[in-house]
């Protein structure tokens, strides 16, 4: 693939944004309109120069996500019944079990997807929201990367929920062994969904506004 530079507008004064130029751009298709236009003429999407309620929505979904994350870790994720025993395992407990089975790589994937990613995501979103609120102009490139990473990686936390779904569907062998989902599966799925909504509510253009007066 060849890398190609699009000509920028305002070559002498540096790059300008649609808003600085008194225009509004469509976030879906890139078409530019005069400010105040309500719907995009190309893709018929709704136009908004900046989402003024972005941060409110980000905080609301984020707090919901953090609240749901606690029961997800405290309550059991899997209920296992075999002929001889009944056991309940939490997210962390399940990963530790995997380690005892010798599947250290898989245990690390599970730990990464259900502990490191969610907590890292909470931290990253808090950092992004606070930096936009304080109108910080520092390292926009790093913050933009953080935003893209959060958007990309957030969905992967769903792995554990799917593992529980597959195990519960597969291991239904009457009295010999059954596996059923615990309440934590529901709270964990909710936590992931809320955090994804929080990241989606974040208007990344706000990161870049601070370096322009």
């Amino acid at each position, binding site marked *: 693939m060849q890398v190609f530079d699009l000509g920028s507008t305002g070559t002498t004064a540096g790059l300008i944004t*649609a808003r600085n130029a008194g225009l509004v751009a469509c976030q879906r*298709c890139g078409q530019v309109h005069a400010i105040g236009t309500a719907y995009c003429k190309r893709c018929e999407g709704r136009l908004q120069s900046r989402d003024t309620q972005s941060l409110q929505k980000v905080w609301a979904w984020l707090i919901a996500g953090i609240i749901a994350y606690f029961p997800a870790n405290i309550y059991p994720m899997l209920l296992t019944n075999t002929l001889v025993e009944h056991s309940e395992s939490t997210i962390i407990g399940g990963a530790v079990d995997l380690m005892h089975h010798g599947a250290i790589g898989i245990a690390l994937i599970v730990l990464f997807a259900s502990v490191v990613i969610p907590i890292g995501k909470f931290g990253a979103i808090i950092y992004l929201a606070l930096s936009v609120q304080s109108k910080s102009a520092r390292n926009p490139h790093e913050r933009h990367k953080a935003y893209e990473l959060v958007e990309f990686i957030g969905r992967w936390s769903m792995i554990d929920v799917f593992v529980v779904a597959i195990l519960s569907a*597969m291991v239904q062998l009457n009295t010999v062994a059954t596996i059923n989902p615990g309440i934590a599966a529901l709270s964990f799925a909710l936590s992931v969904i809320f955090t994804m909504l929080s990241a989606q509510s974040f208007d990344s253009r706000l990161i870049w506004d601070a370096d322009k007066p």
Partner: protein
Amino acid sequence: MSQSLPPLDDLVACHHCDTLHVAQDLPDRARAYCQRCGSVMMTTQSTAIARVLSLAITAFVLLIAAISFPFLALDAKGLHNTTSVIDAVLAFNEGYAFPLAVAVAFFIIIIPLTRLGALIYALGPLARDKPAHAGAKRAFGLAEQLRPWSMAEIFIVGVTVALIKVAGLAAVTIGPAFWAFAGVVIVTVLKDQMICRYSIWEALEQQPD
């Protein structure tokens, strides 16, 4: 200030940071990035729409196969249990876990099928140089909006983890649907890499509504 700018239709703004650029025709197999934040703004491939469409149709057929054939079979102490993707969804159908069954059904079956269906509906006529169907723009917008919620590839990784968890407990056989699902994942990744939103919107715009 706007007097000095080129006509609005020649401009394109970065959807991530709002920076204005002048759109131009790219040479084949080129990729254009935003000058400020580095997001991909356009990619070109003269046959892109036809290829995206054919990949979408492939993924759609594979997904139907993945849903209907047995996915995994489990044997332990003389007992046998075959699981399809639908069973994985229905695993949550009791009591408080019911909402979870609905969510899993959406993430791995309904949303991927809707996305692919909408894409085929929007791009089908374009690939044959015919006028687009009514609502093609809305269909493509929907396919784009649902993108983060379509989780087939995550489901496949989940299956792998689950297989290792039960490996000690019972013998697991992989069914045809597993391979179909893996195919869906690969084809979807290829398709999403190839798609250029800008040129598809442009192609849809030139259609009489």
